């Protein structure tokens, strides 16, 4: 493996390039096809679909079916979920590492157990809860069930475990209490892991489908992911239009991945090795 004779090296490159083509093709295809013109049939069927000012393909989508509204619709819950998960996970992880809790193992086990319960298995009662509270079609309804994360707690705990005890002691000697230490020393130094968790949460929140499908009813409240599904059923004749919607949904996450990739890699392994 390491000796890398020319043969094996060429093979590796070949393998990677072939896989790369398979990975990137749908991405490329999706984004380029978004700029295709509509078929003539589609155009005649929907002559008034473009209002003034909608010149480019993507903007045609947004003008017609208010996809931008759908994107905006997703911004608040995504932010709420991301911030919520990072905050609650950081607090809990801190307690599990630095506080002398009684039955610490039990509590941590309880947190971990939430990772093993599939959300679909509890979605019906959650739906009933949120609708009884009158939170359907609200940001709160979308975000509430996801404000804490067993995975996030686990990730941050692993990272905190690797934190040098000398720094902890130094902070204590200087009179820093728990919250002070957490806020001014631990969190700034754990930035890569926090970023990793944030990106991960944001990606999952943005890409949610089942839950928003249930708790949003009015089209104006629906998220882009669901909008795409509907575009796709109602505009099956016009792949360009549908894919334009896809691009709209994809841009934020693509940016996150491209610019956050190093955090994802570094952050998820940070704290793995002490």
């Amino acid at each position, binding site marked *: 493996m390491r000796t890398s004779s020319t043969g094996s090296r060429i093979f590796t490159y070949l393998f990677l390039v072939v*896989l790369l083509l398979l990975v990137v093709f749908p991405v490329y295809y999706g984004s380029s096809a978004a700029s295709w013109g509509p078929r003539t049939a589609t155009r005649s069927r929907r002559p008034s679909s473009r209002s003034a000012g909608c010149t480019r393909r993507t903007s045609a989508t947004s003008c017609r079916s208010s996809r931008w509204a759908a994107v905006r619709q997703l911004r608040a819950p995504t932010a709420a979920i991301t911030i919520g998960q990072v905050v609650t996970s950081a607090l809990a992880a801190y307690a599990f590492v630095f506080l002398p809790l009684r039955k610490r193992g039990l*509590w941590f086990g309880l947190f971990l157990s939430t990772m093993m319960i599939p959300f679909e298995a509890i979605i019906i009662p959650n739906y009933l809860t949120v609708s009884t509270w009158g939170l359907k079609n609200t940001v709160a309804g979308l975000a509430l069930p996801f404000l804490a994360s067993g995975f996030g707690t686990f990730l941050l705990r692993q990272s905190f475990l690797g934190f040098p005890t000398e720094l902890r002691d130094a902070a204590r000697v200087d009179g820093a209490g728990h919250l002070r230490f957490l806020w001014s020393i631990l969190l700034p130094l754990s930035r890569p892991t926090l970023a990793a968790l944030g990106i991960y949460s944001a990606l999952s929140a943005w890409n*949610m489908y089942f839950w928003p499908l249930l708790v949003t009813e009015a089209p104006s409240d629906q998220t882009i992911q669901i909008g795409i599904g509907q575009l*796709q059923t109602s505009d099956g004749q016009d792949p360009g239009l549908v894919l334009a919607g896809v691009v709209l949904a994809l841009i934020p996450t693509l940016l996150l991945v491209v610019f956050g990739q190093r955090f994802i890699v570094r952050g998820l392994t940070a704290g793995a090795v002490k």
Partner: protein
Amino acid sequence: MDRPGLPRPALVVFALFVFYPLVRSIVLSFQGTDIIGRPAGFVGGDNYAQMFSDPDFGQTILVTVAFVVATVVPSIAIALAIALALQGRIRGIRFFRTAFALPFAFSVATASVVFQVLYNPASGVLNGLLSYIGVGPVQWLTNPTWPCGRCARRRCGCSWATTCSSSAPGSARSTRRSSRRPRSTAPRVAAQPVDHPAAHHAAAVLPRRHRDGPGPAELRQIKILTVGGPERRTTTLVYSIYDQAFNNNNSNFGYASAQAVVLLLVVLAVTAVQFGILERKVFYR
């Protein structure tokens, strides 16, 4: 101020939206449901009896198993292969890493839509390519003999877009991490990282992603791609739950809850096996 209740916010959320619903799911599964979705009294095991005597449910389970096997196995294999290939000293490794991370960005909704266009029998790229080698147009999404194979294939294709690739960075991560160690361990990558702390991360990330795989991912792609058809051959457990509880205002919450309980038990069993195996390798090897 010595011991602030720091885990409390998370605990409240879990209590309200994980543990309470868990209990309520089980309770609901023993209850009937009236036509507008209100619980209509205790019915004992009726929902379960109905479920297990329903041939559709058997089919649903089979489809789910086939779906999971056809997606998880290739995606792990491919992820490992990518991870191994990325382990060598390679020019442009940054580029490759970023490129392979791209599908992270796809939601299953977006990926499904892209693949639906690819699969389009008349104008899709796949049939276009097939016609070059002289194979007639294939009705990818509607041919009743193929949908499961299609699911798998789409999923393999899409594993590039979702499952596989999300695990690819995972295993690539632990592999890359371990690349600082003597290279002689490299080919044993499957066994090697398990004694490595990074394996705990992989172990935490991978099963989770794969549970996400047969879970919500599945619902999205099935809802978008095939709507459970043809002839229920792509109806999996999660889709069935959705179908019973929410589709067309069915509101059959009791019966759907019984299926949800089955889903829960299956996932717990799989997780237990996963942990059993991992545990042995990680700690006692």
